[in-house]
């Protein structure tokens, strides 16, 4: 892109690591000041959650500025969408946030349903809610395990994965796959709940809550954990809104914004649940918010399983999906934040444009703001607390 092209912007390393607006008074530097160190964290690094590359500018161990380099996992999902029919594109969205693939599928199916102006039958909606909430728990468990691992606690990872296994088993029993589930179809669900689905969910809920207490015993009051997370990576509500940060990161800053409540989709208006919020917007609050969200998810699952209505699971959708000309933006509350799909239809069987608003990508922007002036160890903690999945950042 040349200099005269529209959209051209000068972008240099020094630009992204400006320090003049920071509270680092460079005036009384002493002769003992070490020279700045530029450290490449990633793309191969144990705690960048995949292939994120963060260029850190350091003064000793203090972070002066960061620059994120992304795109190592780019697979062109949005472009693929333009070359597939609406139904065919469904399995691809599972592969963006592969930790919470059910939510991805839900968002896409709902967006297309909105475009087609159909609504999934109540039973399908309830099944969808149960699965997405299970998926939220699974995603938060992966987050908790890796976040704790980044901060040095090895063990919670294995406990989390043990409990996540139960969720994945439910997924496998329901739709035949554990990770990239492809559980929902446009217009409802294709799979009827299997025999014992309700019991499995109830059993999981009963077993999970004591396990959650165990995680908390390991971490919540642990003085090392508290010290490592309290006051680290603070984002105040104004910054959150300015940066477009959503999900638990936003709620930890004290903003009570949850799309399940703010713009109820599916059957969420039927359920009674709290939206946990934090006070300080630091890493510890984000931890507490997510832990509480898991509890609330269990609550939703219990209600949904108890009130699971009978009836069809698929709305009347033509075999060949040809939405009318138009465009739609639909967003849901994915485990990581607002997951939006913007679909432009030209009336053919294939979307003209699919644009995904991934929560990880937007939340990652806040990294620089959060880590300036902190130490290297905090960068790792903050990347962990943002709960990014590089498949979704790069798409």
């Amino acid at each position: 892109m040349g200099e005269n092209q529209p959209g051209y912007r000068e972008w240099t390393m020094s630009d992204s690591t400006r320090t003049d607006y920071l509270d680092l008074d460079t005036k009384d530097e002493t002769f003992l000041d070490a020279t700045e160190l530029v450290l490449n964290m990633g793309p191969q690094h144990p705690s960048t959650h995949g292939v994120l590359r963060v260029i850190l500018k350091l003064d000793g161990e203090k972070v002066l500025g960061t620059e994120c380099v992304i795109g190592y996992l780019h697979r062109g999902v949005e472009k693929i969408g333009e070359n597939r029919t609406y139904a065919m594109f469904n399995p691809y969205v599972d592969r963006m946030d592969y930790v919470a693939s059910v939510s991805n599928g839900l968002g896409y199916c709902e967006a297309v349903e909105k475009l087609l102006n159909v609504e999934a039958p109540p039973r399908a909606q309830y099944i969808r809610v149960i699965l997405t909430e299970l998926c939220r728990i699974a995603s938060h468990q992966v987050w908790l395990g890796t976040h704790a691992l980044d901060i040095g606690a090895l063990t919670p990872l294995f406990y989390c994965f043990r409990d996540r296994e139960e969720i994945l088993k439910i997924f496998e029993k329901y739709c035949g796959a554990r990770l990239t589930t492809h559980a929902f179809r446009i217009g409802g669900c294709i799979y009827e709940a299997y025999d014992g689905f309700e019991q499995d969910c109830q059993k999981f809920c009963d077993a999970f809550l004591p396990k959650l207490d165990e995680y908390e015993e390991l971490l919540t009051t642990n003085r090392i954990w508290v010290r490592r997370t309290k006051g680290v990576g603070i984002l105040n509500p104004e910054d959150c809104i300015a940066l477009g940060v959503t999900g638990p990161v936003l709620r930890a800053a004290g903003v009570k914004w949850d799309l399940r409540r703010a713009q109820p989709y599916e059957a969420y208006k039927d359920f009674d649940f709290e939206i946990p919020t934090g006070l300080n917007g630091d890493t510890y609050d984000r931890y507490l918010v997510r832990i509480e969200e898991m509890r609330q998810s269990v609550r939703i699952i219990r209600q949904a399983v108890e009130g699971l209505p009978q009836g069809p699971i698929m709305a009347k959708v033509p075999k060949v999906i040809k939405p009318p000309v138009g465009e739609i933006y639909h967003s849901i509350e994915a485990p990581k934040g607002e997951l939006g799909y913007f679909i432009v239809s030209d009336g053919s069987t294939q979307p003209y444009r699919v644009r995904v608003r991934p929560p990880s990508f937007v939340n990652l922007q806040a990294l620089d703001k959060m880590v300036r002036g902190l130490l290297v160890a905090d960068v790792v903690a903050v990347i962990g607390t943002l709960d990014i999945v590089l498949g979704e950042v790069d798409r």
Partner: protein
Amino acid sequence: MIPVATTFFFYFLAVLAIGSAIAVITQRNPVHAALALIVTLLALAGFYLMLYAPFVAGVQIVLYAGGIMVLFLFVIMLVNLEQNIREYQFNKQWLVGTIVALALGGLLLFVYRTGRGTFPTVFYQGYRGLEGDNTQQIGLALYGQYMLPFEIASLLLLVAIVGAVVMAKKRI
């Protein structure tokens, strides 16, 4: 403790000490020089052991080799080394330096020659008695006879610590 192969160890340590001392001033890389200095200090600790002063040897290792040199290396490693390596190793005062060194060497030789009689020629058993309570002797001397100098020295160190903090800290 019965000494074993005393002569061998003496010459071994002497060669080690002198060799690494020469390396300290001839090495261009300051890190290598500092490492050579550590070897010298360790060899000196060996000498103290041979002189039946185990406590002094232990302190030599703990403080000089283990503590001070670690911090020394710490600082050197952060300095931009490439520039140092490119610089001339000897500056213009080398002539004066040689004269001063020769003078010092002559003085030491003179002292050794005139005071030769006071040096023991063999290890006599009296020293060995000291070995056991070497630590105690030093303690008594330090906190009895030399109490005031000791306290003054520690005060000096305290001032140095405060000074270092003032210099290193941007804001106090």
